């Protein structure tokens, strides 16, 4: 074999060995070590229930939801290099991303990926329900999953405003107007008028639930900033923490579900 020597030189080199401690995983021992020794792979156990590996059982929906989250993180960070969340600049930056970047599809990847994530997360929930995988001992992980579904909606919803076009502000107007109707906490909600001290209302458009959400009485620059921070930092961090718990609990609760 003419290439034997250079091949061995690479495989046996100090650099290669320092990165991938295990050689070619051709024995069971090495298959275990490769999973245990890799920070990404060790989300998995070294062995899983055979019935749970099958694609028709899991649809890979949970995995793809996580993968789409990663795609969205990556494309989102790239978009953040070009996007400025102010009322004057947000829309022109969008136009620039569309018109000035040859073959630019980062915004498309981000937007369609986000919609796909919403769909895939719902599918994952559907799959977990249909296989009864929320049943003991996995009850709590289902609860975490529901929270992650809510965060997925919120991520998509906050991102919806950022292009600052007509589609964005009116969709967010419709959505955030709902907060106005929160019982007791929204200025237009039932019961809010009773919360007053000496005739001075405690809940008014300047401090109600909608104000908390959009940061002002009307949608404006402060809303854009607020949604930007929520979208890029706050909710992704919260989702990341919950995802860590979610994945950890899959393993702690006995791995992928299967019939007893």
């Amino acid at each position, binding site marked *: 074999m003419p290439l034997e020597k250079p091949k061995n030189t690479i495989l046996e080199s100090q650099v290669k060995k320092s990165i991938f401690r295990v050689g070619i*995983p051709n024995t069971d021992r090495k*298959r275990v070590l*490769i999973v245990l020794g890799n920070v990404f*792979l060790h989300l998995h156990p070294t*062995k*899983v*229930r*055979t*019935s*749970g*590996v099958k694609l028709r*059982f899991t649809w*890979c929906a949970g*995995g*793809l939801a996580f993968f789409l989250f990663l795609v969205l993180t990556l494309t989102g960070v790239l978009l953040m290099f070009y996007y400025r969340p102010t009322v004057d600049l947000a829309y022109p930056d969008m136009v620039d991303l*569309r018109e000035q970047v040859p073959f630019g*599809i980062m915004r*498309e*990847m*981000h*937007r*369609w990926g986000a*919609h*796909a994530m919403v*769909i895939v997360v*719902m599918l994952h*929930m*559907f799959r977990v*329900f*249909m296989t009864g*995988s*929320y*049943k*003991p001992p*996995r*009850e709590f992980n*289902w609860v975490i999953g*529901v929270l992650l579904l*809510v965060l997925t909606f919120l991520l998509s919803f906050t991102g919806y405003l950022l292009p600052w*076009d*007509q*589609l964005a*502000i009116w*969709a967010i*107007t*419709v*959505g955030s*107007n*709902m907060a106005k*109707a929160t019982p007791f906490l*929204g200025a*237009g*909600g039932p019961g809010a008028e*009773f919360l007053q001290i000496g005739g001075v209302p405690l809940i008014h458009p300047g401090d109600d639930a909608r104000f908390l959400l959009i940061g002002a009485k*009307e*949608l404006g620059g402060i809303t854009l900033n607020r949604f930007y921070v929520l979208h890029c930092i706050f909710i992704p961090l919260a989702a990341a923490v919950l995802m860590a718990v979610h994945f950890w609990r899959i393993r702690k609760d006995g791995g992928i*579900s*299967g*019939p*007893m």
Partner: protein
Amino acid sequence: MSETLKHIVNYFSAPEWSFTIFSVLFIWALFQRWIWTRQGVIIAMVAISVALGWALQDANFRVTLLKPDNAPIFLMIYLFSFFLWMAMLQAHNNDRRMEQRLPPEEKETSDQKTWVWPDLVYIELLCMILCTVALVVWSITVRAPLEEPANPANTPNPSKAPWYFLGLQELLVYFDPWFAGVVLPSIIVLGLMAIPYIDVNPKGSGYYCFKERRLAILTFLIGFFVMWDFLIPIGTILRGPGWNVFGPFEEWSSHKVVALTNVNLSEYVWVKAFYPLGQAIGWEWLAQGLPATDGSLSLANITRVFKKEFAGILILAFYFCVLPGLLARGWLKDFCERLGFARYSVAIFLFLTMATVPMKMYLRWLVNLKYIVDTPWIKF
């Protein structure tokens, strides 16, 4: 021929028809084993495609459906139909096996173990590649929507929420915002979280099945497919200017005026029932018409509000407070005993709340009911 068909579709796509037809067909289909076969899914996918392809020939439908952010709805329709089949095929297959006293199919390999490297990692890699390819192709072929710059002075008609919330927005037709926009979504989230704690059925854990957990699956699927997913295309395609209903092949005209003839329950009681009755038997108290109320918190006014709305308040009190107890003693006796008091209370509250949604929709469609209870402070 095509025009006639379009008229028929327009007519039957009105929510009162399409919602009814869809719910009945959906629930019926879940029980039909012969539907959930390999041929079944191919026929269904082809049928959806042909129907969409035919409908897209129509200019009005094209305008509505090909709006920039409606692309995910296509994806949703295809994926959800496909995976519903995927789940029900395996569920019925396992049901059949269990009728023959065989374990579910998953059981055959569930005691074996597979190496994560390379078997699982390989599947995950393939899925990631396929997903990436699909996403890149989608991104190259369809541009992300970007409309006119934001203009707070120019309200589009209709203004719509993002597509995944359009089911909730559709419910605003039948409920006030405090319920459809705040309380109901909160109850949905809490109700989803409560599922593992109120479903005490130990069967069906870790494998697809239908027969062993019919109640749980029916409730979830009706919520998920009928009340959440089906209302999304309704809100997207059928709701035009003024949030009026337009058939898929109808032009969205902002001049369409639909007479609002909705009537409160209190009006039915005091004006349409008591008034003529009181006149007939000459009892003035009955014939007084709708008691006048205002927003003040004086005892006299509150009494008048209660008097005006007594029927609705009694109905709701019966529905949420008495009915659970009656059901626990009668029809749902076994269910209640299995769950225990706390679980039963939560479960029945969630069931009944969920049921208010279609009930209120049908009351609107059948008798134009607006509010069951209409006080100056809270309306339901």
